[in-house]
Protein backbone atom coordinates (compact mmCIF):
# COMPACT_ATOMS: atom_id res chain seq x y z
CA UNK A 1 0.00 0.00 0.00
CA UNK A 2 1.41 3.36 -0.99
CA UNK A 3 0.52 6.74 0.36
CA UNK A 4 -0.22 8.90 -2.66
CA UNK A 5 0.12 12.28 -1.00
CA UNK A 6 -0.21 14.12 2.26
CA UNK A 7 -3.79 15.16 1.62
CA UNK A 8 -7.22 14.33 3.07
CA UNK A 9 -8.56 13.94 -0.46
CA UNK A 10 -7.45 11.39 -1.47
CA UNK A 11 -7.20 10.01 2.01
CA UNK A 12 -6.38 6.33 1.79
CA UNK A 13 -3.29 4.48 0.62
CA UNK A 14 -3.53 2.68 -2.71
CA UNK A 15 -2.71 -0.99 -3.25
CA UNK A 16 -0.15 -1.90 -5.91
CA UNK A 17 1.66 -5.10 -6.74
CA UNK A 18 5.41 -5.05 -6.47
CA UNK A 19 6.75 -4.90 -9.99
CA UNK A 20 10.40 -5.43 -9.22
CA UNK A 21 12.78 -5.46 -6.30
CA UNK A 22 16.51 -5.00 -6.64
CA UNK A 23 18.41 -4.51 -3.40
CA UNK A 24 16.83 -1.55 -1.63
CA UNK A 25 14.89 -0.40 -4.66
CA UNK A 26 11.28 -1.41 -5.16
CA UNK A 27 9.54 -0.59 -8.41
CA UNK A 28 5.84 -0.14 -9.04
CA UNK A 29 4.08 0.20 -12.34
CA UNK A 30 0.68 1.84 -12.48
CA UNK A 31 -1.67 3.61 -14.81
CA UNK A 32 -3.03 7.03 -13.90
CA UNK A 33 -6.65 6.20 -13.32
CA UNK A 34 -8.01 8.65 -10.76
CA UNK A 35 -7.14 11.26 -8.17
CA UNK A 36 -4.84 8.98 -6.20
CA UNK A 37 -2.65 7.74 -9.01
CA UNK A 38 -2.52 11.25 -10.51
CA UNK A 39 -1.22 12.63 -7.24
CA UNK A 40 1.28 9.79 -6.97
CA UNK A 41 2.55 10.59 -10.46
CA UNK A 42 3.37 14.11 -9.28
CA UNK A 43 5.91 12.77 -6.78
CA UNK A 44 9.38 14.06 -7.43
CA UNK A 45 12.74 12.44 -6.81
CA UNK A 46 13.51 12.72 -3.10
CA UNK A 47 9.87 12.97 -2.00
CA UNK A 48 9.01 10.72 0.92
CA UNK A 49 5.81 8.71 1.00
CA UNK A 50 4.77 6.06 3.48
CA UNK A 51 4.54 2.49 2.24
CA UNK A 52 3.51 -0.71 4.00
CA UNK A 53 4.25 -4.15 2.66
CA UNK A 54 4.75 -6.66 1.29
CA UNK A 55 1.16 -7.66 2.04
CA UNK A 56 -0.87 -10.69 1.04
CA UNK A 57 0.27 -13.60 -1.12
CA UNK A 58 1.76 -14.04 -4.58
CA UNK A 59 1.44 -16.42 -7.52
CA UNK A 60 2.73 -19.90 -6.70
CA UNK A 61 5.84 -20.74 -8.74
CA UNK A 62 5.14 -22.66 -11.94
CA UNK A 63 6.99 -25.98 -12.27
CA UNK A 64 7.17 -25.97 -16.06
CA UNK A 65 6.00 -23.90 -19.00
CA UNK A 66 3.00 -21.76 -18.17
CA UNK A 67 0.50 -19.35 -19.61
CA UNK A 68 0.37 -15.74 -18.43
CA UNK A 69 -2.72 -13.69 -19.28
CA UNK A 70 -2.41 -9.95 -18.80
CA UNK A 71 -5.05 -7.28 -19.28
CA UNK A 72 -3.57 -3.80 -19.57
CA UNK A 73 -1.72 -2.70 -16.48
CA UNK A 74 -2.40 -6.17 -15.02
CA UNK A 75 0.91 -7.07 -16.69
CA UNK A 76 2.63 -5.55 -13.64
CA UNK A 77 1.54 -8.44 -11.42
CA UNK A 78 2.92 -11.00 -13.88
CA UNK A 79 6.30 -9.43 -14.53
CA UNK A 80 8.06 -10.99 -11.53
CA UNK A 81 7.01 -14.42 -12.85
CA UNK A 82 8.19 -13.62 -16.36
CA UNK A 83 11.55 -12.47 -15.04
CA UNK A 84 12.06 -15.38 -12.71
CA UNK A 85 11.02 -17.96 -15.27
CA UNK A 86 12.50 -16.61 -18.47
CA UNK A 87 11.38 -18.24 -21.71
CA UNK A 88 8.85 -20.38 -19.90
CA UNK A 89 5.76 -18.27 -20.45
CA UNK A 90 3.27 -18.16 -23.25
CA UNK A 91 2.19 -14.59 -22.70
CA UNK A 92 -1.26 -13.39 -23.73
CA UNK A 93 -1.28 -9.66 -23.40
CA UNK A 94 -4.29 -7.55 -24.30
CA UNK A 95 -5.23 -3.92 -23.84
CA UNK A 96 -7.66 -1.36 -25.17
CA UNK A 97 -5.15 0.34 -27.43
CA UNK A 98 -1.46 0.37 -28.41
CA UNK A 99 -0.39 2.87 -25.75
CA UNK A 100 -1.81 0.70 -23.00
CA UNK A 101 0.29 -2.32 -23.95
CA UNK A 102 3.02 -1.05 -21.67
CA UNK A 103 6.48 -2.62 -21.57
CA UNK A 104 5.59 -4.79 -24.51
CA UNK A 105 9.17 -5.11 -25.76
CA UNK A 106 10.51 -6.11 -22.37
CA UNK A 107 7.69 -8.62 -22.02
CA UNK A 108 8.51 -10.02 -25.46
CA UNK A 109 12.12 -10.60 -24.46
CA UNK A 110 11.11 -12.53 -21.35
CA UNK A 111 8.33 -14.70 -22.76
CA UNK A 112 8.72 -17.89 -24.77
CA UNK A 113 5.99 -16.69 -27.05
CA UNK A 114 3.76 -13.65 -26.97
CA UNK A 115 0.25 -13.03 -28.29
CA UNK A 116 -1.13 -9.53 -28.27
CA UNK A 117 -4.53 -8.01 -28.91
CA UNK A 118 -6.02 -4.55 -28.69
CA UNK A 119 -9.69 -3.62 -28.65
CA UNK A 120 -9.14 -1.15 -31.49
CA UNK A 121 -6.63 -3.19 -33.48
CA UNK A 122 -3.96 -0.49 -33.20
CA UNK A 123 -1.40 -3.24 -32.60
CA UNK A 124 -1.61 -7.03 -32.56
CA UNK A 125 -4.84 -8.81 -33.31
CA UNK A 126 -8.07 -6.83 -32.94
CA UNK A 127 -10.29 -8.28 -30.25
CA UNK A 128 -10.13 -9.79 -26.81
CA UNK A 129 -7.06 -11.59 -25.49
CA UNK A 130 -9.28 -14.20 -23.90
CA UNK A 131 -10.52 -15.31 -27.35
CA UNK A 132 -6.94 -15.91 -28.46
CA UNK A 133 -6.28 -17.77 -25.23
CA UNK A 134 -9.35 -19.94 -25.76
CA UNK A 135 -8.11 -21.06 -29.21
CA UNK A 136 -4.60 -21.72 -27.90
CA UNK A 137 -5.75 -23.74 -24.92
CA UNK A 138 -7.34 -26.45 -27.02
CA UNK A 139 -5.86 -29.75 -25.80
CA UNK A 140 -3.28 -27.98 -23.64
CA UNK A 141 -3.20 -28.18 -19.85
CA UNK A 142 -0.46 -25.75 -18.84
CA UNK A 143 -1.08 -23.75 -15.66
CA UNK A 144 -2.58 -20.32 -16.25
CA UNK A 145 -1.71 -17.12 -14.34
CA UNK A 146 -3.96 -14.14 -14.91
CA UNK A 147 -3.78 -10.48 -13.91
CA UNK A 148 -6.12 -7.81 -15.19
CA UNK A 149 -9.58 -6.31 -14.85
CA UNK A 150 -12.39 -8.40 -13.33
CA UNK A 151 -14.34 -8.94 -16.62
CA UNK A 152 -11.20 -10.42 -18.18
CA UNK A 153 -10.55 -12.64 -15.19
CA UNK A 154 -14.12 -13.87 -15.30
CA UNK A 155 -13.68 -14.82 -18.97
CA UNK A 156 -10.47 -16.67 -18.12
CA UNK A 157 -12.37 -18.47 -15.41
CA UNK A 158 -15.05 -19.54 -17.91
CA UNK A 159 -12.41 -20.72 -20.38
CA UNK A 160 -10.46 -22.92 -17.97
CA UNK A 161 -13.54 -24.25 -16.17
CA UNK A 162 -13.90 -28.03 -16.33
CA UNK A 163 -10.65 -28.54 -18.25
CA UNK A 164 -8.54 -29.61 -15.31
CA UNK A 165 -6.27 -26.61 -15.77
CA UNK A 166 -4.55 -25.09 -12.76
CA UNK A 167 -5.35 -21.37 -12.83
CA UNK A 168 -4.56 -18.44 -10.54
CA UNK A 169 -5.95 -14.92 -10.74
CA UNK A 170 -4.64 -11.78 -9.09
CA UNK A 171 -7.65 -9.69 -8.07
CA UNK A 172 -8.07 -5.95 -7.72
CA UNK A 173 -10.42 -4.40 -5.18
CA UNK A 174 -10.80 -1.10 -3.38
CA UNK A 175 -8.87 -1.35 -0.11
CA UNK A 176 -8.72 0.70 3.04
CA UNK A 177 -6.35 -0.92 5.56
CA UNK A 178 -4.45 -3.47 3.46
CA UNK A 179 -3.75 -5.61 6.52
CA UNK A 180 -6.97 -7.59 6.87
CA UNK A 181 -8.61 -5.46 9.53
CA UNK A 182 -11.37 -3.50 7.83
CA UNK A 183 -12.93 -6.32 5.77
CA UNK A 184 -13.55 -3.82 2.99
CA UNK A 185 -11.89 -5.62 0.08
CA UNK A 186 -13.60 -8.99 0.22
CA UNK A 187 -14.35 -11.26 -2.70
CA UNK A 188 -17.01 -13.95 -2.64
CA UNK A 189 -15.49 -17.43 -2.81
CA UNK A 190 -16.84 -20.96 -2.56
CA UNK A 191 -15.86 -20.87 1.13
CA UNK A 192 -17.38 -17.47 1.95
CA UNK A 193 -15.99 -13.95 1.72
CA UNK A 194 -12.22 -13.71 1.64
CA UNK A 195 -10.03 -10.64 2.00
CA UNK A 196 -8.21 -9.72 -1.20
CA UNK A 197 -5.51 -7.95 0.85
CA UNK A 198 -4.81 -10.86 3.18
CA UNK A 199 -5.89 -14.23 1.75
CA UNK A 200 -5.25 -12.78 -1.74
CA UNK A 201 -4.72 -11.01 -4.00
CA UNK A 202 -3.99 -14.31 -5.80
CA UNK A 203 -6.73 -16.95 -5.64
CA UNK A 204 -7.20 -20.27 -7.41
CA UNK A 205 -9.68 -19.08 -10.01
CA UNK A 206 -12.17 -21.89 -9.41
CA UNK A 207 -12.69 -20.63 -5.84
CA UNK A 208 -14.10 -17.30 -6.96
CA UNK A 209 -17.85 -16.84 -7.14
CA UNK A 210 -18.48 -14.39 -9.98
Amino acid at each position, binding site marked *: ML*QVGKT*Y*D*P*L*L*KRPFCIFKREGNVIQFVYRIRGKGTRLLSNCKKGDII*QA*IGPLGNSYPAPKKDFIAVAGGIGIASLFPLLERFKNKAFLFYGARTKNELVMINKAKSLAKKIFTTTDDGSIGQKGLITDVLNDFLENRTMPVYAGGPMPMLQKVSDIVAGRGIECYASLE*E*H*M*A*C*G*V*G*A*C*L*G*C*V*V*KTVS*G*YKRVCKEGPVFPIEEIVW
Partner: protein
Amino acid sequence: MELTVNIGRLKLKNPVMTASGTFGYGEEYSEFVDLNKLGAIVVKGLSITPREGNPAPRIIETPAGMLNAIGLQNIGVKTFIKEKLPFLKKFKIPVIVNFFGDSIEEYVKAAEGLSKADGVDALEMNISCPNKQAGWIVFGTDPKVAFEVVNAVRKATDLTLIVKLSPNVTDIALMAKVAEDAGADAVSLINTITGMAIDIRTRRPKLANITGGLSGPAIKPIAVRMVYEAYRAVNIPIIGMGGIMNSEDAIEFMIAGATAVAVGTANFVNPSVTLDIIKGIESFMGKGGIMDVKNLVGGLRC
Protein backbone atom coordinates in the same frame (compact mmCIF):
# COMPACT_ATOMS: atom_id res chain seq x y z
CA MET B 1 2.94 14.34 33.50
CA GLU B 2 -0.32 12.50 34.15
CA LEU B 3 -1.87 10.77 31.14
CA THR B 4 -4.13 8.26 32.86
CA VAL B 5 -7.89 8.45 32.59
CA ASN B 6 -10.74 6.33 33.97
CA ILE B 7 -13.67 4.96 32.01
CA GLY B 8 -16.02 3.20 34.42
CA ARG B 9 -13.80 0.78 36.30
CA LEU B 10 -11.16 0.78 33.57
CA LYS B 11 -7.89 2.57 34.15
CA LEU B 12 -6.30 3.68 30.90
CA LYS B 13 -2.62 4.62 30.88
CA ASN B 14 -3.43 7.23 28.27
CA PRO B 15 -6.64 8.45 26.63
CA VAL B 16 -6.01 6.96 23.16
CA MET B 17 -7.82 3.83 22.03
CA THR B 18 -8.73 2.24 18.73
CA ALA B 19 -12.20 2.49 17.21
CA SER B 20 -14.13 -0.71 16.72
CA GLY B 21 -14.08 -2.14 13.21
CA THR B 22 -10.95 -0.32 12.18
CA PHE B 23 -8.40 -2.35 14.10
CA GLY B 24 -9.60 -5.92 13.52
CA TYR B 25 -8.94 -8.12 16.53
CA GLY B 26 -5.66 -6.37 17.29
CA GLU B 27 -3.47 -9.01 15.65
CA GLU B 28 -3.71 -7.37 12.24
CA TYR B 29 -1.95 -4.24 13.51
CA SER B 30 0.46 -5.78 15.98
CA GLU B 31 3.27 -5.63 13.41
CA PHE B 32 2.89 -1.86 13.25
CA VAL B 33 1.91 -0.88 16.78
CA ASP B 34 3.19 -1.96 20.19
CA LEU B 35 -0.29 -2.61 21.54
CA ASN B 36 0.98 -2.20 25.11
CA LYS B 37 1.42 1.51 24.45
CA LEU B 38 -2.28 2.09 23.74
CA GLY B 39 -4.79 3.32 26.30
CA ALA B 40 -7.08 0.44 25.35
CA ILE B 41 -7.95 -1.66 22.37
CA VAL B 42 -11.49 -1.90 21.03
CA VAL B 43 -12.04 -4.90 18.80
CA LYS B 44 -14.33 -5.45 15.83
CA GLY B 45 -18.03 -5.80 16.67
CA LEU B 46 -19.27 -9.27 17.55
CA SER B 47 -22.67 -10.91 17.50
CA ILE B 48 -23.71 -14.07 19.26
CA THR B 49 -23.64 -15.96 15.95
CA PRO B 50 -21.20 -15.24 13.08
CA ARG B 51 -22.23 -12.88 10.29
CA GLU B 52 -21.20 -13.12 6.67
CA GLY B 53 -21.48 -9.40 5.96
CA ASN B 54 -22.52 -7.50 2.84
CA PRO B 55 -21.61 -8.15 -0.80
CA ALA B 56 -18.78 -6.18 -2.42
CA PRO B 57 -18.06 -3.38 -3.07
CA ARG B 58 -18.12 -2.59 0.62
CA ILE B 59 -16.01 0.56 0.75
CA ILE B 60 -15.59 3.64 -1.35
CA GLU B 61 -13.48 6.68 -0.78
CA THR B 62 -15.18 10.09 -0.67
CA PRO B 63 -13.64 13.54 -0.19
CA ALA B 64 -11.78 13.49 3.14
CA GLY B 65 -13.50 10.29 4.15
CA MET B 66 -14.81 6.91 3.22
CA LEU B 67 -18.13 5.12 3.12
CA ASN B 68 -18.30 1.57 4.39
CA ALA B 69 -20.99 -1.06 4.36
CA ILE B 70 -19.16 -4.08 5.72
CA GLY B 71 -22.41 -5.42 7.13
CA LEU B 72 -20.98 -6.27 10.55
CA GLN B 73 -19.15 -9.34 9.26
CA ASN B 74 -17.71 -11.14 12.28
CA ILE B 75 -16.68 -14.54 13.58
CA GLY B 76 -19.17 -14.61 16.47
CA VAL B 77 -18.67 -14.50 20.23
CA LYS B 78 -17.62 -18.15 20.65
CA THR B 79 -14.93 -18.19 17.98
CA PHE B 80 -13.63 -14.84 19.18
CA ILE B 81 -13.18 -16.15 22.72
CA LYS B 82 -11.50 -19.33 21.47
CA GLU B 83 -9.31 -17.98 18.67
CA LYS B 84 -8.71 -14.25 19.13
CA LEU B 85 -8.90 -13.52 22.84
CA PRO B 86 -5.80 -15.60 23.82
CA PHE B 87 -3.66 -13.30 21.65
CA LEU B 88 -5.16 -10.16 23.19
CA LYS B 89 -4.68 -11.50 26.73
CA LYS B 90 -0.91 -11.33 26.24
CA PHE B 91 -1.06 -7.55 26.40
CA LYS B 92 -1.31 -5.44 29.50
CA ILE B 93 -3.93 -3.04 28.17
CA PRO B 94 -7.69 -3.17 28.68
CA VAL B 95 -9.52 -5.13 25.99
CA ILE B 96 -12.87 -3.58 25.15
CA VAL B 97 -15.14 -5.77 23.09
CA ASN B 98 -17.70 -4.19 20.83
CA PHE B 99 -20.88 -6.17 20.26
CA PHE B 100 -24.34 -5.89 18.76
CA GLY B 101 -27.52 -7.84 18.07
CA ASP B 102 -30.69 -7.54 16.09
CA SER B 103 -32.96 -8.19 19.05
CA ILE B 104 -32.73 -7.43 22.76
CA GLU B 105 -32.34 -11.15 23.36
CA GLU B 106 -29.28 -11.32 21.08
CA TYR B 107 -27.69 -8.32 22.77
CA VAL B 108 -28.17 -9.94 26.15
CA LYS B 109 -26.80 -13.30 24.98
CA ALA B 110 -23.71 -11.70 23.47
CA ALA B 111 -23.11 -9.62 26.62
CA GLU B 112 -23.48 -12.68 28.85
CA GLY B 113 -21.15 -14.77 26.71
CA LEU B 114 -18.47 -12.09 26.64
CA SER B 115 -18.78 -11.33 30.35
CA LYS B 116 -17.95 -14.93 31.20
CA ALA B 117 -14.76 -14.90 29.13
CA ASP B 118 -11.47 -14.32 30.89
CA GLY B 119 -9.67 -11.40 29.28
CA VAL B 120 -12.58 -9.15 28.34
CA ASP B 121 -12.24 -5.96 30.39
CA ALA B 122 -15.19 -3.95 29.17
CA LEU B 123 -18.05 -4.04 26.68
CA GLU B 124 -18.96 -1.46 24.09
CA MET B 125 -22.46 -1.95 22.73
CA ASN B 126 -23.23 -0.79 19.23
CA ILE B 127 -26.82 0.38 19.19
CA SER B 128 -26.76 1.53 15.55
CA CYS B 129 -28.35 -1.75 14.45
CA PRO B 130 -31.87 -2.36 13.19
CA ASN B 131 -34.28 -4.12 15.55
CA LYS B 132 -35.89 -7.08 13.83
CA GLN B 133 -38.70 -7.20 16.40
CA ALA B 134 -39.70 -3.59 15.80
CA GLY B 135 -39.86 -3.04 12.04
CA TRP B 136 -36.07 -2.81 11.72
CA ILE B 137 -35.98 0.58 13.42
CA VAL B 138 -32.45 1.29 14.58
CA PHE B 139 -32.19 0.78 18.37
CA GLY B 140 -30.09 3.86 18.83
CA THR B 141 -32.46 6.27 17.12
CA ASP B 142 -35.46 5.67 19.37
CA PRO B 143 -35.03 6.80 23.00
CA LYS B 144 -37.50 4.26 24.37
CA VAL B 145 -36.02 1.28 22.54
CA ALA B 146 -32.49 2.45 23.29
CA PHE B 147 -33.30 2.59 27.00
CA GLU B 148 -34.80 -0.88 26.91
CA VAL B 149 -31.85 -2.56 25.20
CA VAL B 150 -29.18 -0.79 27.25
CA ASN B 151 -31.03 -1.54 30.47
CA ALA B 152 -31.38 -5.22 29.54
CA VAL B 153 -27.65 -5.47 28.84
CA ARG B 154 -26.85 -3.57 32.04
CA LYS B 155 -28.64 -6.29 34.00
CA ALA B 156 -26.72 -8.99 32.13
CA THR B 157 -23.17 -7.80 32.80
CA ASP B 158 -21.00 -6.53 35.61
CA LEU B 159 -18.31 -5.32 33.23
CA THR B 160 -17.82 -1.66 32.45
CA LEU B 161 -20.49 -0.91 29.85
CA ILE B 162 -19.90 1.67 27.15
CA VAL B 163 -22.77 2.56 24.82
CA LYS B 164 -21.73 3.65 21.33
CA LEU B 165 -24.22 6.22 20.12
CA SER B 166 -25.54 6.67 16.61
CA PRO B 167 -25.16 10.18 15.19
CA ASN B 168 -28.18 9.63 12.93
CA VAL B 169 -30.49 11.29 15.45
CA THR B 170 -31.85 14.80 15.96
CA ASP B 171 -30.90 15.07 19.64
CA ILE B 172 -27.65 13.38 20.62
CA ALA B 173 -27.78 14.85 24.14
CA LEU B 174 -31.07 13.06 24.74
CA MET B 175 -29.63 9.74 23.53
CA ALA B 176 -26.58 10.14 25.76
CA LYS B 177 -28.84 10.84 28.73
CA VAL B 178 -30.98 7.81 27.90
CA ALA B 179 -27.86 5.62 27.89
CA GLU B 180 -26.77 7.04 31.24
CA ASP B 181 -30.21 6.54 32.77
CA ALA B 182 -30.27 2.95 31.49
CA GLY B 183 -27.07 2.19 33.36
CA ALA B 184 -24.21 2.83 30.95
CA ASP B 185 -20.84 3.56 32.56
CA ALA B 186 -19.75 5.64 29.58
CA VAL B 187 -20.86 6.64 26.11
CA SER B 188 -18.77 6.62 22.95
CA LEU B 189 -19.60 8.82 19.99
CA ILE B 190 -19.94 9.13 17.15
CA ASN B 191 -20.56 6.04 15.07
CA THR B 192 -20.48 6.61 11.30
CA ILE B 193 -23.00 8.91 9.64
CA THR B 194 -25.21 7.27 7.04
CA GLY B 195 -24.21 8.39 3.56
CA MET B 196 -24.35 7.42 -0.08
CA ALA B 197 -22.40 7.83 -3.32
CA ILE B 198 -23.53 7.27 -6.91
CA ASP B 199 -21.57 6.54 -10.07
CA ILE B 200 -23.13 9.05 -12.44
CA ARG B 201 -22.11 7.14 -15.57
CA THR B 202 -23.72 3.85 -14.63
CA ARG B 203 -26.29 5.53 -12.33
CA ARG B 204 -25.58 2.78 -9.82
CA PRO B 205 -24.78 3.23 -6.15
CA LYS B 206 -21.06 2.86 -5.50
CA LEU B 207 -21.71 0.49 -2.59
CA ALA B 208 -23.47 -2.83 -3.12
CA ASN B 209 -25.48 -2.04 0.02
CA ILE B 210 -26.51 1.33 -1.55
CA THR B 211 -25.90 3.27 1.68
CA GLY B 212 -22.98 3.10 4.09
CA GLY B 213 -21.39 4.77 7.06
CA LEU B 214 -19.26 7.84 6.47
CA SER B 215 -16.07 8.18 8.49
CA GLY B 216 -12.83 10.13 8.32
CA PRO B 217 -11.92 13.80 8.70
CA ALA B 218 -15.06 14.82 6.76
CA ILE B 219 -17.22 14.04 9.82
CA LYS B 220 -15.01 15.54 12.52
CA PRO B 221 -16.82 18.86 13.04
CA ILE B 222 -20.12 17.00 13.45
CA ALA B 223 -18.52 14.62 15.94
CA VAL B 224 -16.95 17.44 17.97
CA ARG B 225 -20.31 19.22 18.14
CA MET B 226 -22.04 16.04 19.29
CA VAL B 227 -19.43 15.35 21.99
CA TYR B 228 -19.89 18.93 23.19
CA GLU B 229 -23.67 18.50 23.38
CA ALA B 230 -23.44 15.11 25.09
CA TYR B 231 -20.91 16.44 27.62
CA ARG B 232 -23.39 19.03 28.83
CA ALA B 233 -26.09 16.36 29.23
CA VAL B 234 -24.40 13.54 31.14
CA ASN B 235 -22.10 12.90 34.09
CA ILE B 236 -20.55 9.68 32.77
CA PRO B 237 -17.31 9.80 30.75
CA ILE B 238 -17.42 10.25 26.99
CA ILE B 239 -15.15 8.53 24.50
CA GLY B 240 -14.92 10.88 21.51
CA MET B 241 -14.34 9.76 17.96
CA GLY B 242 -15.07 10.70 14.39
CA GLY B 243 -12.33 11.68 11.97
CA ILE B 244 -9.44 11.97 14.42
CA MET B 245 -6.29 12.06 12.29
CA ASN B 246 -3.70 13.52 14.65
CA SER B 247 -3.09 14.70 18.21
CA GLU B 248 -4.60 18.13 17.58
CA ASP B 249 -7.88 16.50 16.57
CA ALA B 250 -7.73 14.29 19.67
CA ILE B 251 -7.16 17.30 21.94
CA GLU B 252 -10.05 19.13 20.27
CA PHE B 253 -12.37 16.26 21.23
CA MET B 254 -11.11 16.31 24.80
CA ILE B 255 -11.70 20.04 25.12
CA ALA B 256 -15.23 19.45 23.80
CA GLY B 257 -15.76 16.99 26.64
CA ALA B 258 -14.22 13.63 25.78
CA THR B 259 -12.35 11.84 28.57
CA ALA B 260 -10.74 9.53 26.04
CA VAL B 261 -10.65 9.31 22.26
CA ALA B 262 -10.82 6.53 19.70
CA VAL B 263 -8.95 6.53 16.42
CA GLY B 264 -10.60 4.79 13.46
CA THR B 265 -10.15 5.56 9.79
CA ALA B 266 -6.75 7.16 10.46
CA ASN B 267 -5.37 3.68 11.20
CA PHE B 268 -5.91 2.87 7.52
CA VAL B 269 -4.01 5.96 6.45
CA ASN B 270 -1.12 5.35 8.84
CA PRO B 271 -1.09 2.09 10.81
CA SER B 272 0.95 3.51 13.67
CA VAL B 273 -0.95 6.79 13.96
CA THR B 274 -2.23 5.97 17.48
CA LEU B 275 1.32 6.11 18.82
CA ASP B 276 1.94 9.43 17.07
CA ILE B 277 -1.23 10.79 18.67
CA ILE B 278 -0.15 9.73 22.17
CA LYS B 279 3.23 11.41 21.66
CA GLY B 280 1.55 14.51 20.25
CA ILE B 281 -0.74 14.85 23.27
CA GLU B 282 2.27 14.58 25.61
CA SER B 283 4.16 17.19 23.67
CA PHE B 284 1.14 19.56 23.65
CA MET B 285 0.82 19.14 27.42
CA GLY B 286 4.53 19.73 27.90
CA LYS B 287 4.51 22.93 25.89
CA GLY B 288 1.34 24.23 27.54
CA GLY B 289 2.36 23.33 31.09
CA ILE B 290 -0.61 20.97 31.41
CA MET B 291 0.25 18.52 34.17
CA ASP B 292 -2.80 16.25 33.91
CA VAL B 293 -4.54 15.28 30.70
CA LYS B 294 -7.85 15.29 32.61
CA ASN B 295 -7.50 19.07 32.80
CA LEU B 296 -8.20 19.22 29.10
CA VAL B 297 -11.53 17.41 29.40
CA GLY B 298 -14.46 19.77 28.86
CA GLY B 299 -12.09 22.71 29.06
CA LEU B 300 -13.94 24.64 26.39
CA ARG B 301 -14.12 28.38 26.94
CA CYS B 302 -17.30 29.91 25.59
